[in-house]
């Protein structure tokens, strides 16, 4: 297994280089002069512009810019954003709240999705199952922002149970509503996946054998149906963590959360290259790491999977 992890980590190097290069190129190719954009409509001295350009290495050719950026990253310096703040500081500010939000969403979708899915799978074709299916379909069909505004209106304004927006208050209570919105679609998928998996495993031969051994229904469900059914679900959840972190732009926008999505969006509109590249690269690394984690977890859950090479 050590070899396997080593190989996977080694694979991250080209992925890291490719991702940063790709993002750097795209930011470089963005139309408009970001330095001029800093000053808006105000008239500026050309000499000042030149000085700022050389400060950010924008006067260098593309490949030199990229090389300097990489050198910075390797020496632990993520550069300075156009607003003058070090990028490292921007990252430190944006990531914690997004990680918190993503983890809350993950817990919500895992708990509700799995519990509902198991019961639906065991009662396939019954009323509970049909209701759960229809509701999950609705969750998938309704766009995230509609769901967001609906909950804001209902829980925030009408009932006043939860704060309507997050802003500076990043408590669990304040993040509960956005987490719910963020989790909704994945929750529906988790529920459907669990349901299918449980229904399939419930008719497996080894489940019948377990019953024939004399185990009661509960023990059969707990020991033989649940664990086998959760293997694909765990895989999905792990891969979803990365998506939840990167895909929170809409949700963060609706609830005014100063997280990764918001920061990246604003940086793109400003043409703030250093910020965009660093923020997105970290997302890529998180994604790769969570995938590696899933593969290791998969092997731990299913002894048939052997991680070789």
């Amino acid at each position, binding site marked *: 297994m050590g070899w396997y992890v080593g*190989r996977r980590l080694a694979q991250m190097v080209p992925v890291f280089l490719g991702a940063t290069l790709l993002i750097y190129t795209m930011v470089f190719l963005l139309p408009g002069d970001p330095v001029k954009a800093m000053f808006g409509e105000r008239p500026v001295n050309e000499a000042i512009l030149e000085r700022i350009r050389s400060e950010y290495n924008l006067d260098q050719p593309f490949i030199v810019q990229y090389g300097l950026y990489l050198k910075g990253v390797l020496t632990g310096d993520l550069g300075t954003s156009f607003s003058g703040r070090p990028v490292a500081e921007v990252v430190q500010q944006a990531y914690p709240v997004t990680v918190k939000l993503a983890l809350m969403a993950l817990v919500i979708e895992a708990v509700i999705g799995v519990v509902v899915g198991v019961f639906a799978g065991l009662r396939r074709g019954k009323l509970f199952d049909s209701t759960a299916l229809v509701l999950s379909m609705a969750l998938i069909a309704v766009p995230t922002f509609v769901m967001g505004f609906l909950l804001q209106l209902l829980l925030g304004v009408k009932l006043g149970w939860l704060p309507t927006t997050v802003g500076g208050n990043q408590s669990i209570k304040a993040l509960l509503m956005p987490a719910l919105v963020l989790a909704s679609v994945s929750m529906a998928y988790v529920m459907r996946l669990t349901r299918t998996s449980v229904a399939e495993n419930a008719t497996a*031969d080894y489940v019948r*054998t*377990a019953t*024939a051994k*004399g185990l009661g229904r509960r023990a059969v469900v707990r020991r033989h149906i649940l664990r086998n059914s959760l293997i694909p679900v765990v895989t999905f959840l792990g891969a979803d963590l990365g998506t939840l972190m990167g895909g929170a732009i809409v949700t963060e926008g609706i609830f005014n959360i100063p997280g990764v999505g918001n920061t990246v969006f604003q940086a793109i509109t400003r043409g703030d290259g250093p910020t965009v590249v660093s923020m997105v690269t970290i997302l890529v690394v998180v994604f790769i790491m969570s995938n590696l984690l899933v593969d290791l977890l998969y092997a731990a859950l299913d*002894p*048939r999977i052997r991680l070789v090479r």
Partner: protein
Amino acid sequence: MTAQPLLSIRDLEVVFRSRTSTVSAVRGASLDLYAGHSLAIVGESGSGKSTTAHAVIGLLPGGGRVTGGSIRFDGQELVGAPASRLVALRGSGIGLVPQDPMSNLNPVYRVGAQIRESLRANNVDVSRSTYRALLELTHETDLADTPAARLYLSSDGRRDLLAALSERGVDVESLADRLVVGFTTRLEVQSLLRQLGLQDAAALAERYVVGASATDRVAGLLAEAGLADAARRARQYPHEFSGGMRQRALIAMALAARPKLLIADEPTSALDVTVQRQILDHLGLLTRELDTALLFITHDLGLAAERAEQLVVMYKGRVVESGPSLEILTNPRHPYTKRLVQAAPSLASRRIQQAKDQGEEAAVIAVSGGEGLVKAPDLLEVRGVSKVFQLRGSRPWDRTDFTAVDDVSLTVARGSTAALVGESGSGKSTVANMVLSLLEPTKGTIVFDGVDTASLSRHELFDFRSRVQPVFQDPYGSLDPMFSIFRIIEEPLRTHRVGGRAAREARVRELLDQVALPASTMRRYPNELSGGQRQRVAVARALALQPQLVVLDEAVSALDVLVQAQVLELLGRLQRELSLTYLFITHDLAVVRQMADQVYVMEKGRVVEQGPTDRVFEEPLEEYTKALLAAIPGSSINLHPRGH
């Protein structure tokens, strides 16, 4: 014999309901099985034999319900019994050895854990402390008074006993093998020690054999089921077991709580013949020793007659005939039983042999051995072919070579049938894949119709593919479920641009006719057909391009005996009509006897014996061939040619 049967089924009715239809699977079946006896239910799939067995243990698949009749087990009525009574009965009263060892063990738990579950679910607690507690309850404080036959040797006890004995200078070498943890009882240890001439045998046995832990007992159960190195095996996962080992684990599991009745539902049909024989022998031995009644379900009449005292023949949900096994075999009365007796491959080959013994040659014996005729030029020649696979080790640079096929040579004469026989893992399918040019040989050449297949250009290879066609074992897996039957059979024609649309359709009709399927089958899909029908479709597809050589890789192994007989007959007829050449790959020697002119027996990648079919069957030279022949179910039955 007790007057009361252990299991008594009367007028059992089982119905399967789906949204659209209701099917009666069992219609008024009755049977009696006495304690310690054995009974086999025989019939083709869909005859209701498995359904009857599952009704007994209350495990009918979804939609199935008992609608009438009664099942009495050990004096209790099971039809309409509450679920709790069935749960209590399963495992401890009735054990089940299921059909497919591959899918019946939970892949995520260790084998030992799954057997221990069996013990725990039925409150068979073997730990010492519980035993003591129980004894105190019954006021039997002296351990010696307990039934010594139920206290097992623990791993600690074994170690201490052996140490104590070797200290005294006793030769423990021979003894070590016979002291099996979790299996050998105090009584047995006592007698073993007495045999060694030890005066204090009883005292030693009492001191060292004080009951085993659950882990030890699990190992003992596995050892009892015939698994070597049981303690280590118990810690492994099912995927590390071979099919035969898994079936042994399932037997250990079914017998763990010492049920009075064991239901064995086609327990070995997924296994190789030699393994099949070992397992059935062992199962027979165990059930006799433990005095367990055996309800055996099978589609092979020969196997049933060999393994059970009583036979019940079922057909379309009804019991059509029942009685003592040999009686039914030698003197079948119902027309269906007669057909079964004729179709049983195990018996068919016996019949050929016996007919020959009586001098009734020629007419009965299949076409000819190829000898004596003008020798046709060989269509296929395999010369010294080897195939080596590289297996990955635990580290990136660890590679081990695995020789799947080792220097195999064989020839197939035009219009004849050669059979490649061996157990799974013998390399026979690898040879087939190389003949089909799906795998490249590591060494050696394959010459088809005078041309070395390795020298073929891309274009020539395309042409070669139309002349050599395969039919695979699994008629479920080898037909695309999304294609209509027409599309399946037409596809090779289209790929090779044979004829126009109308001509292709006419050809498909002709092919369906050749394999005795109605033309209306064209519009249906694989899942609407039975296993036999699907295999006919697979044959039709293989024949579409008018090949010269058909490679039949276990083509009939997955089929019921009656269907198997039909498909074999079809293959024989097609061979005569279209002068086809067959390379027949199988583990089933009974089928070989019916089909092949020339036999090659493979073991561990090598051809160990070859020759004309009759010679190999009558005078096998190799031990391995003899073992294979002896393993044919029903080979031990002496068929009297009554009514012949």
